């Protein structure tokens, strides 16, 4: 089944992914279909597993200062910096609305 265009747009906005063309959308639909097969398993009375680590002990660290003080190294990755601050655009720039940009449907 088709994933509705509104959902695709919503996903693109939320995850900042670009489905780009029909091929990208088809791949998404394949992934959803693949995951839906999980519904075939009878999970009546079974607690959901949300981590393969569920039987592991969560390691607790001592409250000591062991890291930090590497400003120079961190800023090496920055495209722009001003006096040891990272520079970012002013707030979030919203994606253009559906009608204002080329959609995957239009491109295919």
């Amino acid at each position, binding site marked *: 089944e088709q994933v509705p265009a509104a959902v695709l747009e*919503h996903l693109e*906005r*939320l*995850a*900042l992914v670009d489905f780009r063309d029909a091929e990208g959308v088809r791949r998404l639909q394949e992934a959803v279909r693949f995951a839906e097969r999980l519904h075939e398993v009878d999970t009546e009375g079974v607690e959901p597993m*949300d*981590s393969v*680590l*569920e*039987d*592991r*002990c*969560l*390691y*607790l*660290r*001592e*409250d*000591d*200062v*062991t*890291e*930090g*003080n*590497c*400003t120079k190294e*961190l*800023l090496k*990755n920055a495209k722009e910096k*001003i*006096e*040891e*601050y*990272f*520079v*970012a*655009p*002013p*707030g*979030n720039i*919203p994606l253009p609305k559906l009608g204002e940009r080329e959609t995957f449907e239009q491109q295919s």
Partner: protein
Amino acid sequence: LASWVAVVGLEIHAQISSNSKLFSGSQVQFAAPPNSLVSFFDASLPGTLPVLNRRCVEAAVMTGLALNCSINKKSLFDRKHYFYADLPAGYQITQQRVPIAVNGSLSYSLCIDNKMSQMVTKTVRIKQIQLEQDSGKSLHDDTRSQTLVDLNRAGVGLMEVVMEPDMCCGEEAAAAVRELQLILQTLGSSQAIMAEGQLRVDANVSVHHPGEPYGVRTEVKNINSVRFLAKAVDYEIQRQIEELENGGTILNETRAFDSKLGCTISMRDKEGKQDYRFMPEPNLPPLILYDAKTLPANMNHQQVVNIDWIRERLPDLPSVKRAKLVELYGILPEHSFTLLNEDGLAEYFENVIKHTQMKPKKVIGWILKDLLSYLKEHALSVKDSPVSSFLLADLLNLLERKEISSSAAKQVFEELWKGEGKTPLEIVKEKQLELLQDQEELEQICQAVMDRQEDEVGAWMLW
């Protein structure tokens, strides 16, 4: 016009008082050079993993116990996704499904009609307490159309305390937060200084007619002090009432409080309602806590957080301290509130008691009326008082032994306030404020006065 009922709930973020961050070993400190307290994990560089700080877990358990919560022996971590420049990973690690503590309560007191003598106790339910990461700081530079990002705060441990909408006005919200602040400071789990961003409060406000369903609520942010919290909540309640009475509607939105204008302003997000796409944090197994019964035999004690061990070591909470002060010293409940409300005042009071023969019921008057009013007038904290508790005790001893009158004592106090290093006795001698104790000398003075005023004495004697 029909009456209105307001409903106020609070979401409070308290920064955990710890040396290092929640999931990394970088230092937690308020003022430091930008991006100097940031590890590779805090900057969300690939290949890094979260490692939970035991101190943060203990702080959350302490706080949960102090707020009468059930501590969840198994709690889980989740990712809350949204994009912002000061959230480098694109998600915040929080506890959305199963937080560390649930279903507690907080009792606080209010003065009726602003009279300290009439105090009423109220309770607010605590929905839950969850552990989560703080974000970095964004400095908005509108002139150059850019944002400067400092990640020093990114990853610092927070306890989010959610208070149910059991409050009805700004005064109640402020009193509840003030009591929470005192509790956190007593526990040491957070220093809870609002001015330094260690305690942030968001208020959820709605209004409705009694008997009708709750109205649409708004969220009010950017509240920087307990005083502003009361103002912001009361303003928003009024705004909503006026809007509805004029036939308007309330939007479910976020509003920012402007302290200069004293009003709330819409922060409506053009993107619409946020979808945080919560998912389990795959890098962290469940957090398991133990108590005396479930303590495993062979486990390394550094890996164990024992709820009972923590409960046994909880200090006296403010409400207990107040009750003890009232019982021990016979002071009034409202006095105990004032003593605890000023940092260091209760200790000061008790030290004076220790060093004076004057009864506590009389000492409290000096503390609350004289000392406190001088401190307030000069905007000083107790620890910066030029009159130490020892000096005040000396002064009160002179008064108690009737070596000076109470008006003379007030004069001496004023002198002591100058902080010139003189003792009360020195000031008394200097200003010749000693009370005459000699019976014969007193009789002579009285006789001399009467001799000079023969007419008045005569008139009085005829009576």
